[in-house]
């Protein structure tokens, strides 16, 4: 099957900074793909090259087989991009903005589809409003609408929920999920790891211009993360178990990492054998943030409070 996006040995340098160090990556049609990494890892550079906003020093990118440089007209028609910055043209209304964007893609009468997008994004009431008068969240939704005017099969969203409130974020994701179910390939960069965990079926993690992990979300979680267990026992006696790593021990209080649920069962079994009673028990499920931290050696780029 032809990849939705085929990234082949893409390298990009800005002066002394190697922004991308020869990245190769295939994104399958219909996928919901996550691109994660700390600030400066090269996510936005990669997206810019995919979108034709920057030129790679080496390598090539194809959208559904169309090279973004040599066959840019076809490539750009196949691609919708939601930029990270909250940009708008202050001269025009929401509907005008969308009509212009349609026109740039050579679509003359696009109002039926524009109305449909506006409705899905809960913007119908704001169609005639000047862009300047919109709130940040609404401007963000207009950006999404602009990326969709030409019904692109491949949609790239660069940090689409940065600075967007919780309710709106949920609505936005519902809409993106629906697009994905309708067959659109979605590529997403985000700082919110829970979002990637919930939405993306496959994830690439970038660090310093290299891909440090590329796998299904489930495998990544299983491979790099584990269960975190906090225990208080009735005495300071913890049996050894190959599936259990002690992260912290303070008298009868223990913080443990379990390899998997089987390790939990085995631990409980041993405790029972020893006749040790559990006083407190707190189990945290696998967490993409753990994976992220271990792979990149960085705190997640978002210092924002997690909601």
């Amino acid at each position, binding site marked *: 099957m032809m990849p939705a996006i085929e990234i082949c040995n893409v390298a990009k340098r800005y002066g002394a900074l190697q922004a991308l160090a020869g990245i190769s990556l295939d994104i399958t049609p219909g996928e919901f793909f996550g691109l994660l990494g700390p600030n400066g890892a090269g996510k936005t550079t990669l997206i810019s090259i995919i979108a*034709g906003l920057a030129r790679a020093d080496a390598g090539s990118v194809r959208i559904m087989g169309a090279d973004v440089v040599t066959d840019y007209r076809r490539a750009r028609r196949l691609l919708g991009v939601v930029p990270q910055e909250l940009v708008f043209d202050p001269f025009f209304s929401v509907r005008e903005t969308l009509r212009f964007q349609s026109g740039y893609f*050579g679509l003359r009468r696009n109002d039926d589809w524009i109305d449909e997008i506006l409705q899905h994004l809960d913007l119908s009431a704001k169609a005639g409003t000047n862009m300047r008068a919109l709130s940040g969240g609404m401007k963000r939704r207009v950006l999404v609408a602009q990326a969709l005017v030409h019904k692109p099969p491949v949609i790239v969203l660069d940090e689409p929920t940065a600075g967007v409130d919780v309710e709106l974020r949920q609505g936005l994701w519902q809409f993106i999920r629906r697009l994905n179910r309708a067959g659109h390939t979605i590529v997403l960069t985000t700082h919110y790891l829970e979002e990637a965990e919930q939405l993306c079926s496959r994830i690439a993690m970038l660090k310093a211009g290299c891909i440090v992990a590329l796998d299904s979300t489930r495998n990544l979680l299983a491979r790099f993360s584990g269960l975190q267990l906090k225990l208080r026992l009735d005495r300071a006696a913890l049996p050894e178990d190959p599936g259990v790593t002690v992260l912290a021990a303070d008298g009868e209080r223990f913080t443990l990492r379990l390899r998997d649920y089987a390790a939990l069962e085995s631990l409980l079994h041993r405790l029972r054998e020893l006749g040790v009673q559990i006083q407190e028990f707190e189990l945290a499920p696998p967490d993409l943030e753990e994976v992220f931290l271990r792979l990149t050696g960085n705190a997640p780029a978002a210092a924002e409070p997690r909601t």
Partner: protein
Amino acid sequence: MSGFAMLLYKELLRFWRVAFQTVAAPVLTALLYLVVFGQTLEGRVRVYDEASYSAFLLPGLVMMSVLQNAFANSSSSLIQSKITGNVIFLLLPPISYLEFFAAYLLASMARGLVVGLAVLGVSTPLVALPLAAPLWALAFALLGSAILGAMGVIAGIWADKFDQLAAFQNFVIMPLTFLSGVFYSIHSLPAFWQELSHLNPFFYMIDGFRYGFFGRSDFAPAASLAVVGASFVVLSAAALLLLRSGYKLRG
């Protein structure tokens, strides 16, 4: 409709929406020049025996308005789009660099010509102006506005800040227009300054445009047209090369 047609329409709408600022204001400026300079210098300066100084001045002011507004249109539109970041909406669609250039160029020419016609229209009742060779006037107005539109594209791509653009306007465009013979015939200048004026491409635009009204000029109109045409080719080529390379637009 192609992306080019929509971009041209957008660029036209952009200045027309704020016509008070982009058309009415420069018309008023030109009228002030006409009234103040015309009144004070009338009778003191006589360039042509058969025409008043105001009549001599008016085509120069019209052309000056055409040139300045053509430059202002593409340069300010581009720098605004770059600074606000919305230029991305033009870089994502399948618009070629040639279409991009043509849309900005034609919108600049339109604004320059609209302002020029408005200056001419408003002044006609005040000043008796002959019209000896209108096609020459039209040719120079079209080419002059195109040259400044292309310069505006170059300046708009190059500048990162509004003050860089203002510097370009104040230190390049303004001196070249003022020293081009808008207000005087270069024959009234000392020999050295006359020679220097011949290096100023704006001189040929003004002089050739004036030929369209009086049927006479400092320099042969066909030769002026050749200079102006060559300037247009060079500047357009420069603008197109910049756009094709993605300079400052496609990192």
